[in-house]
């Protein structure tokens, strides 16, 4: 057992919240609006369904192979060589995702707040911080989530101060162009929801794994509600403009003005975004480190945290030349990346695993 730390299922549920939302809630309204326009709030339903499947798959697999992560049980399910291939896939994908998330964070910060600061500094400082947390082990990550999460959730309620400026009727006409645009728009949100699969790296450290599924569902539902809430606020404020705004929630925060003294709340958003991304990058980096250590059967994962962090930093910088390409990636490629690594492979594993179990039980019986 590589990870000696112990967390509770409740902490795991909390950790999943920023993992999905930190990068999701700032850009998802735009992406879904580009496809579904004013029906974007409906995409949450489909995304929640995939979230349900993801949480079920990951907890079911953990029930079948308790105390193991996807990298370990894939070897048992599919055999040594295919299992290692899947392990490699998880290493690369988790590293890639870490880099991508950090890049997204840095793009937002340089584009809107620190115009002159180089990308490398912003990305490097966040990854360094997350790497230190990961090196501290899963307990450190869990405790920092518990401490910082209120600061990540609370500012969202400030958006309610926009109420006088919101046009609720922007939601009409419902389903004007049929269901197809909603389904198209759901893909990116479904992708984000599949990130719940990262629970697989936490479940072995959970002291009460039987509650894992319950907290997974609770986390999934809160995430959906928060995403729908922020999408609706963005839609009511921006109406037809929503699809063309890069960071609609930023505009929403900037637009808050109560009695002309409570204004310019975007610094609040930045604080929240830094905290959320720290937690998110922490989880992703932890997943990458753990998959690497388990795939190559290392005795300890701590020595490789910093090298892997550096690697993901480089990936984050080299992967994407500019923002439009990043946008294209997030819109068209990322949902399918995530869908295949975090949903399809686990489903395949579960299918094979249940077939095997049935076979062995028949042999025994």
């Amino acid at each position: 057992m590589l990870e000696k730390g112990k967390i509770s299922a409740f902490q795991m549920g909390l950790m999943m919240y920023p993992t999905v939302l930190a990068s999701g809630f700032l850009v998802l309204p735009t992406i879904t609006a580009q496809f579904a326009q004013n029906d974007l709030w409906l995409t949450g339903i489909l995304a929640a369904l995939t979230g349900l499947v993801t949480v079920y798959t990951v907890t079911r697999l953990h029930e079948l192979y308790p105390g193991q992560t996807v990298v370990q049980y894939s070897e048992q399910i599919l055999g040594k060589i295919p299992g290692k291939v899947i392990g490699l896939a998880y290493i690369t994908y988790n590293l890639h995702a870490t880099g991508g998330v950090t890049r997204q964070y840095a793009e937002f910060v340089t584009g809107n707040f620190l115009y002159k600061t180089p990308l490398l500094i912003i990305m490097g400082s966040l990854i360094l911080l997350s790497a230190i947390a990961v090196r501290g082990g899963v307990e450190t990550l869990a405790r920092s989530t518990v401490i910082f999460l209120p600061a990540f959730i609370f500012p969202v309620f400030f958006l309610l101060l926009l109420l006088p400026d919101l046009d609720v009727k922007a939601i009409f006409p419902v389903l004007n162009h049929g269901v197809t645009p909603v389904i198209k728009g759901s893909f990116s949100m479904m992708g984000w929801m599949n990130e719940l699969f990262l629970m697989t790296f936490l479940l072995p450290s959970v002291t009460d794994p039987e509650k894992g599924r319950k907290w997974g569902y609770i986390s999934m539902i809160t995430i959906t509600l928060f995403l729908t809430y922020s999408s609706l606020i963005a839609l009511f404020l921006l109406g037809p403009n929503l699809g063309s705004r890069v960071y609609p929630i930023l505009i929403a925060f900037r637009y808050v003005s109560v009695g002309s003294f409570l204004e310019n709340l975007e610094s609040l958003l930045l604080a929240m975004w830094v905290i959320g991304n720290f937690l998110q990058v922490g989880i992703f980096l932890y997943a990458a480190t753990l998959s690497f250590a388990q795939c190559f059967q290392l005795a300890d994962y701590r020595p490789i945290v910093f090298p892997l962090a550096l690697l993901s930093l480089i990936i984050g910088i080299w992967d994407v030349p500019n923002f439009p390409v990043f946008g294209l990636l997030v819109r068209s490629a990322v949902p399918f990346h995530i869908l295949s690594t975090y949903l399809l492979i686990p489903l395949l594993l579960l299918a094979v695993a249940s077939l095997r179990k049935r076979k062995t039980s028949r042999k025994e019986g």
Partner: protein
Amino acid sequence: MKTWIRTWIKTAVFIPLLLVLGGCWDRTELNDLALITALAFDKVENNQVRATVQFVLPQNQSGGGTTGGGAMGGGAARRTSVRSETGFDITDALSKLQRVIPREMFWGQCRIYIFSESVARTGIREHLDFLIRFPETRERAYMFVSKGEAASALELFPPIENSSAEVLRKLSDLRIGIRVTMHQLSLMLSGDSRTAILPMIYILPKTESAGPFQTIPYLLGSAVFKNDKMVGQISERVTKGVLWLRNEVKGYTVVFKPEGSEGLMSLKPVKANVKLIPKIEGETWKMTVRVRTEGDIIQNGTIMDPMNPQLLAVISKGFKDDVRKRIESALYEVQRRHKTDVFNFAQTFQRKYPKQWEKMKDRWDEQFSKVEVNTEIEAKILRPGLISSPEGVPKEEVKKK
């Protein structure tokens, strides 16, 4: 020994960090910034644009209000200054402007953007693109169109506020006329009707005793945009009617003549709630304007006693007819003459009849002038003010019935 080295390494790393983390190494303090309060767009030859910025002169801010005014040689204290520069587009002009302003321009406080009429007539799309794309500008800033040169509105030294930009902001906040933020303008232009309306500003003729440039810009009437170009101008009276149709009536004054009386009756504040109810019957598109309005009496020039329910009904009817007249004249002017859908009928139709709207979308301009509008007005007078029967009229002469 080993722990001793570790401690030293840690200290060696963290002490320089402390120096950097204070943020002092690249601080920007207030005296490094030029606080821009307003930006004006003017058109010059060769299709170029002239940007004029108004910025705060910090040393005159404190004590300026009461004592400073007298100290500045009788005139208003010059608390702001203007600079202008010409460029191919607004960004070009602004970058040239930075050459003549020693401090870095700071846009976070800029709440006023003024297009001159000629800029507005050639189109504001490219300027609006800059204003919305540039991260430092504020979506809550107010937008205006000026009659004549836009820069001249910034050159004034208003006697009462710190800057003419502040004057425009305060006047807009009174909600007497139309008030449009950058965010609303972008919504209007990208909406279904692709029209917009912006308040017009004029320069108030200065009083005789005032010094040169000692006056204010003020709002009068409004400019109507089709796509991104100004296509016409509507008067103050029509603008007020437009306010009713756009449901923006807040704390308003209504003066009218009740039926069968000599004098006038005034109500203030008048509040209103306006609903647009679209309907398509075959080929005819109809719009019902349902108005619920209420107000308090503030002046009674008639000899009617508003405490009498029967007379109050007569007065209310006068109120109602007046509101109808206001709305109808605005409709006539905008719908028949300008043919520009500044009331956003397009959106209400699109939301209720998306299918028919899809077919009509490209012909909306002509269809808009054909929309049949009905008004359903419910007008109530709630309170008589501090006195009940007309003031200065002997009891016997007050009309009781």
